[in-house]
């Protein structure tokens, strides 16, 4: 029996898929534990969903194959909250506002700031506090 793993991802639902209870099926049919961080339906009826899924790797794989039948885009790298390495000046203003330590000091000597996407819960606290506009939301 394989161990369970957790994957963070962003799903993009093109027009008209918003009314289908896809997440319900992830839980019911694929035994996944779902933790939704952020969801949004735009006026154009497109949907964005950022979530963690926990389950057996093969269940996750099958579930993703199921999700793809709805023309849903699965993004496992770029999440809803983005940190622009080039725009970041490593000032450290964000550090006390990030509740999970996703934005953190990667090197004590140089005080270089880095972003751990896996730790980000998409609370978006960093977006208004970054003086250099380094943090942004994809939706």
């Amino acid at each position, binding site marked *: 029996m394989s161990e369970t793993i957790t994957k963070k991802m962003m799903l993009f639902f093109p027009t008209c898929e918003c009314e289908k209870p896809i997440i319900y099926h992830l839980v019911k049919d694929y035994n996944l534990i779902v933790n939704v961080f952020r969801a949004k339906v735009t006026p154009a009826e497109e949907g964005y969903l950022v979530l963690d899924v926990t389950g057996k790797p093969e269940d996750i794989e099958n579930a993703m194959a199921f999700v793809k039948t709805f023309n849903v885009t699965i993004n496992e790298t770029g999440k809803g909250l983005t940190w622009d390495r080039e725009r970041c*000046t*490593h*000032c*450290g*203003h*964000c*550090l*006390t*506002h990030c509740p999970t330590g996703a934005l953190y*000091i990667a*090197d*004590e000597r*140089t*005080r*270089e*700031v880095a972003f751990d996407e896996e730790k980000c819960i998409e609370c978006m606290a960093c977006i*208004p*506090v970054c*003086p*250099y*506009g380094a943090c942004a939301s994809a939706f």
Partner: protein
Amino acid sequence: MSVTGRDCSVKTYAEINRKIESGKAVVLTADEIMDYVDRKGLASAAREVDVVTTATFGPMCSSGCVLNFGHSTPKIRMSEAWIEDVLVYTGLAAVDVYLGATQLRHADSANMYYPGEFRYGGGHVIEDLVAGKRLQLFALSYGTDEYPRRELRTYFTIHDLNQAVMVNPRNCYQNYNVAVNETERRIYTYMGCLEPNCGNANYCSAGQLSPLLNDPLYETIGVGTRVWLAGARGHVYAEGTQHAADCARTQAGVPMEGAGTLALTADMKAMRPEFVRGVSLQGYGVSLGLGVGIPIPILNEQVLKRTCVRDRDIFAPVVDYGKDYPNKTGRVILSVSYEQLRRGEIEIGGRKVPVGSLSSYRKALEVANLLADEIRRGDFLVAEPLARLPSKGAMKSLEIRPERK
């Protein structure tokens, strides 16, 4: 405390420059020099090391630039002008303007819908100029006999200008407050977003790498000192505004509050965009993040010793920006060292307070290393000051007088 160093002269400015020109100068950053001196001993290190580079990167609100557009046909004497809808000062000659870093964009709602976002303003225009972007100029005039044009709208880049010279009345504050908020609501300040009941603390200094903390008594940095301003070669043109040397200092002469400042200038056409960055401070306004590097010529042991200052020897005052700062009470909650601040947590009244920063040590290090490389290559000489910065003087307050008499 005496401001003159002990008479233990090792090198002159001319000797140091000859070594730089021959490509043999020994240059270390203010981040490296302490360990080097610990290893070599002060006397031998003072003979060996020619220059220690210092640097800082952070928001510097008192920054701006003088631009000359050249003349259109027919000519205009600009009486009001905007670049990318940001108002510039036109109370100068016909096509000279001054663009200030904190100027808001026309029709910015500022804090009308508190806290304002302040996405774009003077600092961002300066960033875009240095980045070589094409920007819009809109100008109005009342029209005169020799300058008949009354309106113009055009697009330009920094390369189209005759001059683009940064003229910053105040940069490189010697030391700075650590901001906290003792009130019960979140506040938005130039020191960042401050959570209620001292929920966080923000500082803004490069500490042991910062120029005037490595020359606390202004022994080498003075009017005329050559500086590295965002990659361009510039100089100190005057004491900075609010320069006030009188303050509490440690035994080594290191100020425990603001103290000295520098007025800097350099050709903006030679600047590097990664060190000239527009700043948006929620609820406060816009500013300019700037990278500055200053070489300290190691004239003698005393000068070298001062560059060996460490974060643990530098103290900053923790100040309440909720009530004390706006009401100018002068109360300091406590003093903390930069070593404590850099650990990411300080203790106030027995409670642990997480610490953030507005100043980038990472970028300051980058500047100090770039400047050190330029000096090693023989591309950047040190300049002997034309005049010392004032070693005395306190900051005056503005008295509100109800009547003229």
